[in-house]
């Protein structure tokens, strides 16, 4: 097959082509490897030299290459979480969900760029440079899984692993015109993911289409003796087949629809998608998530609090960067001063403050109460409707540097995605149209462990919308 034709295949289509004898796993790998090695979007931080020797090509994933966000530990392969403090760090073990996918036949193509420790919404916080959006190289791909999203959109990888803490899979998927699934918290093991905020972090797929998302997610779920919070999934994940949404009740939260900074073009594409849903037999109504407007504030207390503790281990004693000094405290200070970027430092400071004696109840304690309220409100909303729908991001991809000086403007990118993260429920972003020639994402969120139904609904919508992503695919690498 021609490289052009290979790259045009989704992962599921590539597997079918391999099964029909039209494509060889080595040929598939070589095509992507060449593109990944030559790419100039800044999407990869490491690219494999060759097809892995221990490839499980008989596995259901047939050797299809997989791009993996840098923060997943991969044995003997740089895993730096976008940070200078982990420059050159080679873990002695591999993350559970990467191992699972490898055992199912995925071959590791490369590690993808990300915001440092997954903190960011534009991929401009990486110590290894920004990632460019293949739809417009002057714009960001979103973050923090920006490298994974750009790589998939630009045909540098058939699919990729990302992680989502407050929107880090869904928002870059939306900004890059691809599909991103943030699964139910606990359905995928976190073992081997370099932690940002433990109670929120969850691994998920970034893919060209909904079928690929289901296929990759199917091989990620499961309990893990190394992760006490991994409960697996009560159902086997099916490949979606639905083409209709008859009887499905969608709810648009009034509080979110009135959200800050929603661009008219995004709103128009969103409304168009709701029309499409109605055409497929769904009803759309307004629902209420009263506490949702407070989600962002609660999130920006809880996530930094956990991060301030999770990132304490980067102290220059055992691995990663060490800036020598005459005494212990100076060594700690200099190492962390030089090793962490500005956004990471900002969040460590916020989190440390929020947990401090005398402030805990006012900040962390209160934020947890908001979190509980939001989870309850979602549960109550889902008694009347099937899924909550929102735009994934209030804006389309913005220009590089546009928000770097204004952290609060940057945080607003997570306005629609953070409530689901706090509630621990699954949400998927699919492309629903263009605004100003840039992709707009539609977010569907359902109750915990409703992934099968969610994927089915997303599949029906995806087919009806018929989003054309070929422009990015063609722009991904020198021809």
């Amino acid at each position, binding site marked *: 097959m021609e490289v052009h034709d290979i790259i045009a295949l989704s992962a599921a289509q590539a597997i079918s082509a391999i099964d029909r004898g039209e494509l060889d796993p080595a040929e598939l790998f070589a095509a992507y490897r060449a593109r990944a090695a030559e790419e100039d979007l800044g999407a990869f931080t490491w690219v494999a030299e060759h097809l892995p020797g221990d490839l499980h090509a008989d596995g259901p994933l047939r050797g299809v290459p997989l791009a993996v966000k840098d*923060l*997943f*530990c991969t044995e003997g392969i740089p*895993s730096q*979480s976008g940070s200078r403090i*982990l420059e050159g*760090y080679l*873990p*002695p*073990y591999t*993350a559970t969900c990467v191992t699972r996918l490898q055992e199912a036949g995925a071959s590791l193509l490369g590690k993808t760029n990300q915001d440092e420790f997954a903190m960011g919404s534009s991929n401009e916080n990486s110590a290894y440079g920004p990632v460019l959006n293949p739809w417009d190289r002057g714009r960001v791909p979103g973050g923090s899984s920006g490298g994974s999203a750009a790589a998939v959109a630009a045909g540098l990888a058939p699919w990729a692993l990302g992680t989502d803490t407050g929107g880090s899979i869904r928002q870059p998927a939306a900004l890059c015109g691809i599909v991103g699934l943030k699964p139910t918290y606990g359905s995928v093991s*976190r*073992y*081997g*993911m*370099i*932690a940002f*905020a*433990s*109670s929120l972090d969850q691994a998920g797929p970034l893919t060209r289409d909904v079928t690929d998302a289901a296929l990759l997610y199917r091989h990620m779920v499961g309990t893990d*003796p*190394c*992760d*006490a*919070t991994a409960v697996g999934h009560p159902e086997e994940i099916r490949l979606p087949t639905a083409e209709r949404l008859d009887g499905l009740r969608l709810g648009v939260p009034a509080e979110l629809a009135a959200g800050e900074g929603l661009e008219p073009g995004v709103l128009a594409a969103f409304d168009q998608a709701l029309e499409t849903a109605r055409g497929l037999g769904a009803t759309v109504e307004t629902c209420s998530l009263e506490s949702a407007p407070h989600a962002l504030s609660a999130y920006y207390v809880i996530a930094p*609090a*956990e991060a*301030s*503790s999770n*990132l*304490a*281990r*980067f*102290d220059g*004693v*055992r*691995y990663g960067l060490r800036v020598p000094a005459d005494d*212990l405290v100076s060594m*700690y200070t200099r190492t962390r001063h030089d090793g962490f970027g500005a956004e990471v430092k900002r969040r460590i400071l916020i989190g*440390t403050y929020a*947990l*401090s*004696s005398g402030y*805990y109840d006012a900040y*962390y304690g209160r934020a947890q109460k908001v979190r509980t309220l939001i989870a309850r409100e979602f549960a109550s909303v889902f008694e009347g409707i099937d899924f909550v729908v929102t735009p994934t991001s209030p804006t389309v991809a913005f220009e590089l540097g546009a928000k770097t000086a204004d952290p609060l403007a940057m945080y607003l990118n997570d306005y629609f995605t953070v409530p689901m993260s706090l509630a621990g429920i699954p949400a998927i972003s699919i492309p629903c149209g263009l605004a100003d020639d840039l992709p707009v994402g539609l977010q569907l969120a359902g109750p915990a462990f409703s992934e099968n139904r969610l994927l089915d609904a997303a599949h029906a919508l995806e087919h009806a919308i018929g989003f054309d992503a070929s422009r990015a695919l063609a722009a991904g690498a020198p021809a």
Partner: protein
Amino acid sequence: MSDVVYEPVIGLEIHVQLRTRTKMFCSCPLSFGEPPNTRTCPVCLGLPGTLPVPNAEAIHFGLMIGLALGSELAPRSIFHRKNYFYPDLPKGYQISQYDEPLCSGGRLGDVRIHRVHLEEDAAKLTHVGASGRIHGSDASVVDFNRGGTPLAEIVTEPDVRSAEQASDWLRLLRTTLRQLGVSDVNMEEGSLRCDANISVRPAGTSELGTKTELKNMNSFRFIERGIRAEVGRQEALLRAGEPVLQETLHFDPRTEAITSLRSKEEAHDYRYFPEPDLPPVRITEAMRGRARGAMPELPAAREARLASVLGLNVETARLLSWRAELGDFFEAALDAGAAMSPPVAAQSLANWVTELSARLDGEDPAESKVTPKALAALVGLVGARRLTQGAAKQVLDRLVAEGGDPEAIVEAESLGAVGGAEELAPIVRAALEAHPDVADKLRGGDMKPIGVIVGYVMKETRGRADGGEVTAIVRAELGQ
């Protein structure tokens, strides 16, 4: 002012290393002196991406400790992170418990228990250089073998009133924990470590004084000396009209010097928050049942049983209960002696266990050459009057030195009791002849020097005669 009598108020915090198969949050086996950093894995090294998984056996042991101390077992318990930077703490936080500990309340002996919680031990830091402390050392090296070892922290109420009481109570606690089989409870090796919170106040008042925390004393002796020194220091300050400052102190057992580790102002803000990597532990009825089923007889119950069922006097019952190894030896000997005819008397046997213990210098009698059966046989010979107390002690000396069977030793050494007028009367007569002045006094009714005559007979018979019988024969010889 200077004649005010001060009363110390002391609370103890005890860290117990649990003897589980693996570490608290990973599957590394526990370390017993292996080469440094050979009992580690990505989890206990705190490598990026790793997660803790709680050790079910440690929770089981924690529940057993709670039951032994009469604590209330929480239906649900959560772990917290205690955040601070130190090279022996690879994650930058210790996983411990905060406001929902595994066990709350309780009592052991005369001291109330505040709480019992689980946590992970830190790694071992060694400072190279003159001071032996991190400050001013040339270099420091870390051995992570110990890092992650399960610890139970037992916190008492401030019920202890003296250094002696503290070390006595700790011995009781150690025995209790040893009986439970949950720890090696070896202070020198660090599997039992004790901090003391100490304040003093004028006796009879109820307000608490400012407390200091004395860290990590690693033997019963040091605990007593450390507490005594700190109580003395605080009393001296108060008598001089100076305040006691709230601080954390270090006691140097070599110099008896107390130095400040950190003041109240320098105290860490540990920023405790619930450990998001660990779901709450639900303590099910099945877990409680397993813990109850695993409980051995504890010192207090044993003391009561030895006193009421076997009729031992209170002091002996307590000794045999608080020092479980003596109690175990005693009960084994009692079993062996029950088959003898007549059965050996419990109180005499207990007395002889005490005799044996005195000869062993604290060693466990089970490790000695004396078997429970041999001791029972010895006590049987005494009970049957075939051996005098004095001769029995000689046999015991032989048993301690060489082991063997008491009967055979008596036979070989001709230590069997000598008795009856025909055997003893000639020796008594010889004694009176050898000591005419004493004989005169005795004849004159002054019985005080009779010991000289009895001593002579004992020497001649190598202790095999019965003192009472000898006295009777002396009187008979003197026609009294």
